């Protein structure tokens, strides 16, 4: 059995990609027929480690709340302590199922899922989503949404740029005016503030 110490080698959120980035990324229709049995093993272990790290942070903060507010059952720290202990406990149990006592059904499912996942697309979309959310206010709804829409469609494999741009502009303008004019929900005007 491979030792789980390969986990911390990469960034915690970037490393699941390493286990399965050998696929020919360029060809859009490369449908892998065979499920690689090893795929996803590392991912499960990393998931277990991430869960445990998160659980440790939760427990740590719960202890802090308890120290500030008291350990009694009516104090604000009581329930967080239960949650922290529960997370650590079940996180450990999951780690055991990922390493010492492997859960075969889970490993099979993960292998199938990993084989079907195009990791580069996933992380590109996640980064784009965060940037989109951050630039929504400064750029304004219509511009940010149009750029995001066209970009993601391209990343996902759409190659009909003109159609996508037309749809993106109509869509974002429609949402913007529908929400601000009809529903009274304020959306950011951004760069177009003076024009709109």
């Amino acid at each position, binding site marked *: 059995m491979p030792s789980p110490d390969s986990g911390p080698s990469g960034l915690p*959120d970037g490393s*699941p990609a390493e286990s399965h980035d050998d696929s020919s990324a360029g060809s*859009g*229709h*490369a*449908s*892998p027929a065979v499920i690689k049995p090893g795929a996803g093993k590392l*991912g499960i272990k990393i*998931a277990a480690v991430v869960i445990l790290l*998160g659980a440790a942070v*939760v427990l740590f*903060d719960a202890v802090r*709340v308890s120290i*500030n*507010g008291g350990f009694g*059952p*009516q104090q*604000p720290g009581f*329930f967080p302590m239960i*949650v922290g202990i*529960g*997370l650590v406990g*079940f996180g450990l149990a*999951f780690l055991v*199922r990922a390493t010492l006592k492997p*859960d075969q059904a*889970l490993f099979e499912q*993960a292998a199938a*899922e*990993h084989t079907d*996942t*195009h*990791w580069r*697309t*996933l992380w590109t*979309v*996640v980064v784009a*989503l*965060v940037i989109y*959310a*951050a630039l*929504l206010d400064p750029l304004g709804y219509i511009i940010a949404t149009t750029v*995001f829409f066209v970009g*993601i*469609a391209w*990343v*996902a*494999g*759409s190659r009909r740029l003109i159609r*996508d741009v037309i*749809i993106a502009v109509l*869509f*974002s303008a429609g*949402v913007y005016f529908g929400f601000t004019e*009809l*529903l*009274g*929900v*304020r*959306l950011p005007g951004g760069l177009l503030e003076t024009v709109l």
Partner: protein
Amino acid sequence: MDVFADLLGGFANALEPQYLLYAAIGVTIGTLVGVLPGIGPALALALLLPLTYGFDPTGALIIFAGIYYGSLYGGAITSILLNTPGEAGSVATAIDGYPMAKAGRAGPALATAVMGSFTAGIISTLGLTFLAPLVANLAKSFQATDYFALMVLAFVSVTALVGTSIIRGMVSLFAGLFVGLVGLDFLTGQQRFTFGSAQLLGGIDIIIVVIGLFAIGEALYGLARLQYAKEQAVEFSGRIWLNKAERKRVWKPWIRGGFLGFFFGSMPTGGSEVPTFLSYNLEKRLSKHKEEFGKGAIEGVAGPEAANNASFSGVLVPLLTLGIPTSATAAIILSAFQIYNIQPGPQLFENSPDLVWTLIASLFIGNIMLLVINLPLVKVWIKILSIPKTLLYTGILVFGILGVYSLSGSITDMMIVCAIGVAGFFMRVYDFPVAPAVLGAILGPMMETQLRRALSISQNDFSVFFTRPLTVGLLVVALAVLVLPAVLPKLLRKAKRAEPAG
């Protein structure tokens, strides 16, 4: 009888032309959104919540009921034609619905789904009409310990009955509880899990959790697999109506599914996953055409789809009478209530009877609208399925961010929804059930409140949880639900092995 007078009053309110129009709009928009692959009722409601901000409470609730029924039906269309169920409740529908569609019988499958939904919806809304006032009356005597035990039962059953691994279910549940606790403690004002961020003081809205897990997570999952996509839409042709032989086969499953769905929906377990699968298995057992199951048996569509619809009115029983939402859909509706300062619970039926009975009446109307508007329009809805997947998932991402932005406009919230979306993606890949996380985030804070209330009455004496019969009964059931699935198969095997020997 009282109930009839109340219900008639509700109909008098809901039958105003403007409300009828709202119901029609709700059903149409709901179907439009629900028919998109991967979008189920909970997500449709979360995404469409901003649309209701401009309406009065009654109007908003009527639109909501319409959106719910519409999206449920939309989900059935995608399950049957694309084999991509948007929510756990439509998984069972796809088992036989998709083979039926492949064999060129998509029309009868969809007709069974919508007419079964209608039949079951009427059965379960009648159930709600009569049961809810009784439970509300009963609930007046409920104490904090009973509420606490009810929520324990809800947690245990959603974790043990849904999903394949209790460990992963529990991780999911506790992660949800953690999300629910973020923010200021309302009793002492102490900061919990805010990690120094002022934006987190108000907590994380349940809408953000639902949009993150379902919309963002689902869209990421879809986009990441698009490069290797293999699923094919089925051509739709032929008749829509059921022929005589089919009608004969489906009406009993509809009725059984309706009762199953309502009964299990109104239990603290909530949700539609358990009743739909129970209904599927029941129909398989009772059917004269067992060999057709899995290959396109019409009963396998009729039963689960009826149960799916009926479970909604069931879920409304604990939501309206106890204020406990037991499914993601119910949690969104609770959020909608809170926007209008309506607090569900035993007092709701006394304090705002107009609203409750109008809501119940609008459920009947929503069901009827579904039948009149949707069945003839099947071919229009199917056109939506031809939207390219790339644009579809991108659109879901944009709508998800829009939903969060219209809540608060806060960039922190949008970052949180991205993080929850990534978590949702990996939960799907590594088979962590999402239902426990959603339920934990909703019920966690309520559970803590009841725990503290109980302990403050008893002055920190934990024995209150073991002296009240109702509390003890609920806790025992919870323990049984947790332990029996693990122990029962072993006991049965032992008994089987003992038989030939003895």
